[in-house]
């Protein structure tokens, strides 16, 4: 196959970055420890010095490093965001992943040579929206929101003037990224405003006679019978009542996994496959990177005869949310 897509892996710290590089990532994306990115969790992310070390490590091994700066900075955050852009340039990162149009304008005016990728948080789900960012800011790549079917992705790749990056594995946002305020509605902070979804500071656990209950602020997300393992209360993965039915009204706890459709994605001309999870451990990063590397290489070698190895699926399910997986919106009936 001619199209050899990049495997783009997350890293929340230096050990995770090394794990991604050592296990076959083509590029690694990281965030600064200044609240300017969509994984603004305590103990996570890079100082400028750590970023420099990470870039040195990656580059010595032929791996590119991208900076994710994908919140929508409000006036009080603007200077921090601009400093993060400046640092991206000073450190010589290979690309900057942005969502905010105002920041893109700053980049184009200040650093016209800086390579911009359109973050998934920019909610660009169609050709005209992508054209907008290409024309106004010269973006080189778009990361597609996890709401498009495989057929729609294939169509878009043909029509847009930029490279297309899609999600291959990781926790599944079921809402259009950049267009979900559920988290701030319940907790005051969201991906757009603070780089967090269902933040840990809002999590409450209540032990009752019938078991353990998880809350975000005062909103009950899930009840677990005594003895059953409890999951982190992500808002959209809770159980709720609609009509007379109690069910996962929005989505089950599950992970996205595209191995089944990998040949279709690769043949469509997708230029990069992204792994979600900068908040995850280095062993997760190592496991997922190694597995996707093997899968992509096998698929490139023989796309027609490609069948996902059962071991790959098992290994990925082991680290997946809910220990299971879905094709999400790529598979039309999911919608």
């Amino acid at each position, binding site marked *: 196959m001619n199209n050899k897509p990049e495997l783009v892996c997350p890293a929340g710290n230096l050990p995770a970055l090394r794990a991604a590089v050592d296990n076959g990532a083509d590029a690694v994306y990281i965030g600064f420890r200044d609240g300017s990115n969509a994984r603004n969790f305590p103990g996570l992310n890079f100082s400028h010095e750590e970023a420099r070390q990470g870039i040195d490590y990656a580059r010595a091994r032929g791996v590119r490093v991208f900076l994710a700066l994908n919140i929508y900075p409000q006036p009080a955050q603007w200077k921090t965001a601009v400093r993060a852009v400046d640092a991206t340039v000073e450190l010589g990162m290979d690309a900057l992943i942005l969502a905010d*149009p105002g920041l893109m*304008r700053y980049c184009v005016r200040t650093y016209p040579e800086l390579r911009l990728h359109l973050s998934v948080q920019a909610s660009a789900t169609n050709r005209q929206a992508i054209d*907008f960012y290409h024309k*106004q800011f010269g973006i080189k790549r778009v990361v597609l929101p996890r709401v498009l079917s495989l057929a729609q992705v294939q169509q878009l790749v043909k029509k847009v003037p930029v490279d297309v990056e899609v999600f291959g594995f990781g926790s599944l946002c079921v809402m*259009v990224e950049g267009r979900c305020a559920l988290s701030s509605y319940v907790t005051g902070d969201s991906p757009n405003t603070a780089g967090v979804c269902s933040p840990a500071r809002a999590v409450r656990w209540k032990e009752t006679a019938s078991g353990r209950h998880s809350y975000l602020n005062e909103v009950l997300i899930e009840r677990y019978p005594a003895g059953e393992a409890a999951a982190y209360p992500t808002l959209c993965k809770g159980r709720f009542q609609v*009509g007379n039915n109690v069910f996962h009204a929005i989505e089950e706890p599950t992970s996205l996994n595209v191995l089944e459709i990998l040949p279709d994605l690769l043949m469509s001309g997708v230029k990069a496959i992204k792994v979600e999870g900068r908040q995850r451990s280095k062993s997760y990063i190592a496991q997922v990177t190694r597995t996707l590397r093997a899968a992509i290489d096998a698929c490139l070698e023989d796309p027609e005869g490609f069948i996902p190895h059962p071991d790959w699926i098992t290994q990925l399910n082991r680290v997946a949310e809910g220990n299971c997986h879905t094709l999400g919106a790529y598979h039309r*009936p999911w*919608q």
Partner: protein
Amino acid sequence: MKISVGPISCFWERSKVFEFYAALEDAPVDIVYLGETICSKRRQLALNDWLDIAEQLSAAGKEVVLSTLTLLEAESELASLRHIAENSRFAVEANDMSAVHMLTNRHSFIAGPHINTYNAETLNLLYELGAKRWVAPVELGREVIRELQLSRPLGMETEVIAFGHLPLAFSARCYTARAHNRPKDSCDFICLDYPDGLPLFTLEKKPFLILNGIQTQSAQTQNLITLLDELEDLEIDVIRIMPQTQDLASIAGIFRRTLDGEMQPEAALQALESYQAYGFCSGYWYGKEGMAWIHASGKASE
């Protein structure tokens, strides 16, 4: 301050839509946003029907804006958007960058609540591209809006959602169809059964969200009725009321009389009680969680 009526967010029978707008002709509202913003499968009205309604409202003295889809994926959706964007009669509200792209340097437009305008640089960019008004995204609180008001370009109007269920999220998945065990592609227009959306409760039976097809709204009704003085001080130009099946003209009337000093905010708040099902919220305005109901005194209550 002007009063606007946002686009109808839920799916209504054709006749109900015509009745709703006929009733608005004499209502004390200044601006009416028209059109489907949620789901392209909702086609009880064609563009020509909307244009007919627009002409009637316009003749009744209302400023009319054609609002547009928020989540666009298919080419057919872009084609419909282009028809609206290319109309030369009415202003257009953009809710996706595809619409901004089509409207750039063509017509003055309104940057809707789903364009992520979070800072002065984005606001200025939109102005340069032709926006004459922006609707603050639901997450922005008064401190941020105050800052943006100070740096907004001359002539750019600011609109805030003052009453209604908040539009919180969009997805490829249709939650109303999912709740009925139907795939989106054979939904049989189940949304028609829920003209005010399908409520979702927590396991403690507390109202939490409203499912409206691919959109998720707050169950609580945002209500800034007691904050109108503050909105005036901030030089907000337009306050938006979101449509619901209950008598919208009465809701608008309560806002109008309060703005005109004919009704006290506390009395207005009492009067609005009959137009909500699951309580009020106002937390976003105070920079807190959106679901909180914080009374004008600044104290949080349930």
